[in-house]
């Protein structure tokens, strides 16, 4: 067993895939120097033909990667800021995502887009603190949000090996997470398979990304009163509906905690499917960012807009107590 950090896991996954598969290359801003500590050492090892420092032309290099993928490569793109994905939304949702169907299956676009440090990095304010995973799930781009070092490693590997475009969000709040890991057991994690981090009988808490740790804390804190099951979907699209159903049909109670905007977010989707298809004993709840949230700069305000542990705790208690 070795101590592995989430950030190191990402670094290692990319390094391993580049060593394993010649067709994998990585593009992005300041990746040669490796300012985000994911691409560290890759330039020296693989040279500028496979580790490409790009100008600030996100749209062009995103579709450039599409073209390279159509021609047989497996590009990985690092985006420095989550909102840069807004800038390339056309290139991902309208081009890369649509090639396969529109060409009647002639083409595939195996590109991985990843954001090391999504969500709030305190003090980065309104334009650098979004968590836009729901947007990609909505348009149908495979959307991954690993919460642990093992899953960061495994899902990054899977993303790179996948023949479709995949977006991977590595929440800022997860980068520092460490775990004792059996290095030999690291390997690809399948898409659409969630993970129960803690079993419980009373309430299912679905937590996304860095909020998995918060959910585990809350579960622990409540353990003498309420038996909380913590379900981590790991991939938001495709989503492990069967896995969720197994949990919710057992507990009958559901709370989702999700660090994205409330309206049309993943939290809403989860509640909707539970309402449609699962045996809910009482009304479910979700703890999210507010509708239309923009993160204000000042620390107190920034925190006030993100889902809080005490809100989750209260929601779990309320759902537990409520009855129809």
């Amino acid at each position, binding site marked *: 067993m070795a101590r592995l950090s989430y950030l190191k896991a990402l670094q290692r996954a990319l390094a391993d895939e580049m060593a394993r598969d010649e067709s994998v290359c990585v593009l992005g801003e300041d990746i040669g120097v490796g300012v985000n500590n994911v691409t560290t050492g890759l330039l020296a090892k693989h040279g500028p033909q496979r580790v490409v420092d790009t100008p600030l032309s996100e*749209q062009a290099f995103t579709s450039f990667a599409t*073209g390279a993928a159509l021609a047989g490569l497996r590009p990985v793109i690092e985006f420095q800021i989550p909102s840069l994905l807004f800038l390339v939304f056309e*290139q991902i949702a309208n*081009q890369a995502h649509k090639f396969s*169907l529109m060409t*009647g299956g002639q083409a595939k676009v195996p590109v991985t887009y990843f954001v090391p440090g999504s969500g709030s990095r305190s003090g980065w304010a309104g334009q650098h603190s979004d968590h836009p995973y729901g947007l990609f799930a909505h348009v149908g781009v495979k959307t991954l949000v690993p919460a642990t070092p093992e899953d960061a490693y495994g899902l990054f590997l899977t993303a790179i090996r996948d023949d479709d475009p995949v977006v991977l969000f590595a929440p800022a709040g997860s980068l520092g997470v460490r775990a004792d890991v059996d290095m030999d057991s690291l390997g690809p994690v399948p898409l659409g398979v969630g993970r129960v981090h803690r079993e419980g009988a009373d309430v299912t808490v679905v937590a996304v990304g860095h909020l998995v740790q918060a959910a585990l804390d809350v579960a622990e804190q409540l353990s003498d009163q309420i038996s909380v099951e913590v379900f981590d979907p790991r991939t938001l699209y495709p989503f492990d509906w069967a896995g969720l159903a197994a949990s919710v049909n057992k507990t009958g109670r559901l709370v989702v905690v999700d660090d994205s905007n409330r309206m049309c977010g993943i939290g809403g989707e989860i509640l909707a499917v539970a309402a449609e298809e699962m045996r809910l004993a009482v009304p479910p709840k979700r703890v999210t960012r507010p509708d239309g949230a923009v993160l204000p700069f000042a620390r107190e305000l920034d925190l006030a807009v993100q889902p809080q542990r005490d809100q989750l705790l209260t929601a779990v208690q309320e759902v537990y107590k409520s009855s129809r």
Partner: protein
Amino acid sequence: MDEQLYRTMRLIRRFEERAIELVHSGEIVGGIHPYIGQEAIAAGVCAALRDDDVITSTHRGHGHVLAKGSDPVRMLAELTGRATGLNQGRGGSMHAADFSKGIYGANGIVGAGGAIATGAAWAAVKEGSDRVAVSFFGDGAVNQGVLLETFNLAALWRLPVLFVCENNGYATTLTIEQGVAGSITARAAAFGMPAVTVDGTDARAVRDAAAEAVALGRAGGGPSFLECTAYRFDAHHTWEHKARVRYRTDEEVAAGRSRDPLDVQGARLPEGARAVIDAEIEAVLTEAVAFALDSPAPDPAGALDHLYATGLRGRNGIGLFEGVR
């Protein structure tokens, strides 16, 4: 070579004319953007290319797809939305693609093909091949950010890509004067790539200029830019045939049409050759139309086939789960 150029142009011209008939008869749904008047550009550029070179095309893409060697029969089946079409009826006019011929697709978004072609050119270089990529686009596209960004990437990394701007004087109803400050070639030149303008109604001139650029690219000399001037004879899109939108005077249209690229090239053929080619092409298109109309429509049960290359299936619109675990 002159005959081949003419043949390609004639194929495009008659393909378009037959396609317009099929739009009017309701067999092609959604209409098309006719390429008539610009045939010398696709024909000339693609004459300088090999089968394994890559192109990206536009909303006005039929000419490029045909000139690059796609089967007109399967192309027409695509436009009529048949299972036998190039894209199995999934793409239609604006997304016709043929990867077996290096055709990375028409594209519904103006300016979107440039970066895709440039990425393909990069892949070719990494592979050690001397393949090149060509991106076709209109004069409207030179105002599109992603394309301007792409000029920089291509020049910076000296990639074997040829940018072909078909300047037909209009972006839908917007004139060049209303749309383009400075000049089109200056935009490319600003990034340090050779940029020239040729008469896009003269297929030979286009071919020669393209051949030079392609040779430069194959030799590792980086990207080039070719502006080809021409006039769009027909509507921006066939909806204009019904709608009353006026943005060009009758005189202007007549003047534009008076220099027909097919006549320019046709005049270079030996006595009688033109009629022979015309007859050949007529036969091809008669077959294409018959094939298309005889072909089956795709099965609606497969409406989302190929949505994911991996075969992933999401939920359908009434919530059935398929394939997820």
